[in-house]
C-alpha cells in the first residue's frame, strides 16, 4: 500500500516537472495554431488534462511530450470540426510590453496562417516551429509522409503568396 502512495507521489512530481519544463513550449505551438493566448492556454491545458491519467504508462513506454503534442493537435482539429470554437479575429494581443512592430509582425503572421487549411497550418507549425521531421509530423497528424510533403509544399506556396507577409517583407 505504501508503495502505491510513493509511486503516485513520484508520478505527480514528474508530471509537474514535465509541465514546468515544457509547458511554455507547448503553449507557443498552441499559440501559432490558434492565434490567441487564451485559446492557446485552453488547448495546452486540455491536452495535458487528457494525457495526465496516462502519464505513467506513456512515460514508461516512450516520449510523453510526443504524446501530449499529438493530443494537442488532435484536440485542435477536433475543436475546428466543432465549428463553435472557430478562430475569432482579434486585433488585441495579450502582451502589453510588446513594441508596435512586433505586434504588426505577429498580426501579419497570424493573418497569413489563418488563410491556410487547418492541416497545412499544423504542418507548418510542426515542421518549421517544432522542428519535427516529416515522419514525426506524419505520426502526430496521423497521415502519410507523402501528405506531409505535399501539404508543406502547398502551404509554402500559399505563404509566399500571402499579401500580409509579402507586404511585411517589403
Amino acid at each position, binding site marked *: 500500500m505504501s508503495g502505491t502512495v510513493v509511486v503516485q507521489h513520484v508520478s505527480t512530481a514528474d508530471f509537474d516537472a514535465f*509541465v514546468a519544463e515544457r509547458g511554455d513550449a507547448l503553449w507557443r505551438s498552441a499559440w501559432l495554431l490558434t492565434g490567441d493566448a487564451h485559446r492557446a492556454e485552453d488547448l495546452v491545458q486540455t491536452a495535458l*488534462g487528457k494525457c495526465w491519467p496516462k502519464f505513467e504508462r506513456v512515460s514508461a513506454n516512450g516520449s510523453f511530450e510526443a504524446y501530449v503534442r499529438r493530443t494537442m493537435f488532435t484536440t485542435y482539429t477536433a475543436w475546428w470540426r466543432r465549428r463553435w470554437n472557430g478562430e475569432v479575429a482579434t486585433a488585441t494581443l495579450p502582451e502589453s510590453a510588446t513594441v508596435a512592430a512586433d505586434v504588426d509582425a505577429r498580426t501579419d503572421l497570424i493573418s497569413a496562417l489563418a488563410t491556410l487549411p487547418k492541416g497545412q497550418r499544423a504542418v507548418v507549425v510542426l515542421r518549421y516551429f517544432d522542428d519535427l521531421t516529416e515522419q514525426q509530423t506524419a505520426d502526430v497528424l496521423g*497521415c502519410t509522409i*507523402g501528405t506531409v510533403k505535399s501539404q508543406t509544399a502547398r502551404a509554402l506556396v500559399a505563404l509566399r503568396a500571402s499579401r500580409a507577409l509579402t507586404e511585411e517583407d517589403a
Partner: protein
Amino acid sequence: MSESELRQLLTDAVPEASPAGDRAEAARTWARRRRNRYVAGVSMAAVAIAIGIPVGLAQSSHQRVEPAPQLKEFACPPVQQQPAAPQSLSSTPGRLSNGPIAVRLCGSDRGYQSPVDALVGQAADDLASSVRAVGPQKPPSGVACNLALIEGRRLSFVFSYPDGHTEGVTVDRGCPGGVSIGNGQVRGLAQDAVAIFKQFNAALLAQRLGQQPPSGAQTTVSCASGDHLGDGRSQLDQGDVPSLTSAVLCWDGNLFSQQPTQEDAFDPQDLRLVLDRMRSDTSQGSVRRDCGKGSVNYRIVGETAWGDRYVLYGDCGSFEVGSGDDFRIWKPQGEAAAILAKMVATGSTTLELPAPATSVEQVLFTWADLVNAGDPRADDLWVHGQPSGVADVNPVFISPGKGDVLPNGQRVTAVAGYAQAVEMDALWGDSTATCPDNRAKTFVLVRQSDFEPWRILSWSDHGLYQHGLGC
C-alpha cells in the same frame, strides 16, 4: 521567403507565454472534472426527474392554489452580428426582478435555434433566484483560462413577467465566463454560468415529462444545422445519445481534404438502429482510431421530437459517446456500419477511377480525359484533390481554383480567343524520391461561357518542384 526565413519568422512572432499558474494542477483538476461529468451525464434523466418534484412546475400536481398569471407570448430578441455581443434587453443592468413566470433559453449566435418551449411557473422564479445569488466576479487566480471554453459559449435567458415585460440575463460559459444581468457588470465565473444553464436544462426536461411536443417543433435538418449550437454538441443536455427522430449523416475527408461536406438523410428506421447500437456497443477506455488515409469524419446532425438539435461526432469513423475519463468510442460494426457505408456510397460524389491508379500521372491523365469529355465527375477530382484508389500519392490542385478566372490582363496569347481561362497547378509529393521531392504540372483550362464545360488547352510538366524539402 525561404524555409529558414519562415522558421525565423515563426520564432520571432510567437510571444512569450503569459504566466500560466499551475498548469499541472489545472490538468489534474480538469481530468477529475471530466470523470465527474461522465458520472453526472449518465444519471442526467434521474436528476431531471428528481428536480422536477420540488420546483413545482405549472403542469405538475403540485401546482399552487392561486391562479397562475397569464403568460403572454414572448420570444428571444434578435441576435447581433457576430462576434456575439450582449443581448439588448429591457432590464436594469445588474438587477433582475422577482417573480418571473417564464424563462426562455436564447442564443448569442445568429444561427442558434432556441428550444421551442419556455420554462414556466416556479422553476422560472427559482432560476431567477439562482441568477441573483451569483456573487461578484473574482478573477481566476493562476491559470488564465480554466478550461471552461470546452463547455461552450455565451447563451442568454429572457425572463417574462406577469405584466408582459421581459428581462435578460447573459451567461458566458467561456473564459473566464460569468453571468450578466441586462448588460450589467459580469458576476461569477464560468462555473456559475454552467450551473445556471444546468438548472434550466434539468427543469425544462422535467417540465416536458408527460407532455407532447408541440406540432411543428421539428424543422428540416441539414449538416449546417449543427453549426450554431451553444457548446458545439447540443442545445440541451439530454445524455450521451439523445433520441433523435430525424437526422442527416454528414461526412468529409481527412484534415487536408478540400472535399466539401456531403450529407444524406437517415431513414427513420435506420436512424433508430444506429442510435441503439451507439448506446449499447461502445467500448470503454482507449480505442485507437484509424485516422489514416481514407478515413472518414462523420457527423450525425439531428433533432429530437421537441426540435432540440444535436451533433454526434464520429471523427475518423468512430463516434465519441460520453465524456468520461476516456471517451467511450463507438466504432460502427455490422448492420449499423452497413447503413453508414451505404449512405456514403449512395450520397457521395467521389470520383472512382476506372481502374486503380498507380501513379500521379495516371490520375492526372484520367482527370484530363474527363475534363475534355465534359464529364462532370472531373469536378469531383478537382475539388477533392485526393482521388480514390490511389496509393500514396497526394496530388494537390492549387489556385487559382475552379471559377477563379484569370483576369484579362494576365491572359497569354494562347488563350486570348477564349472568354475564360484558368491556370491550375497540380502539385504532389513523391515519397519515393529523396531531395528535392515534389513535382508539379500546370494545366490551362479554357471555355467560352459559364455554361460550357472546361477543356484543357495545354499542360506543362515542371518536373521536380524546387522547394528543397526534406534536404
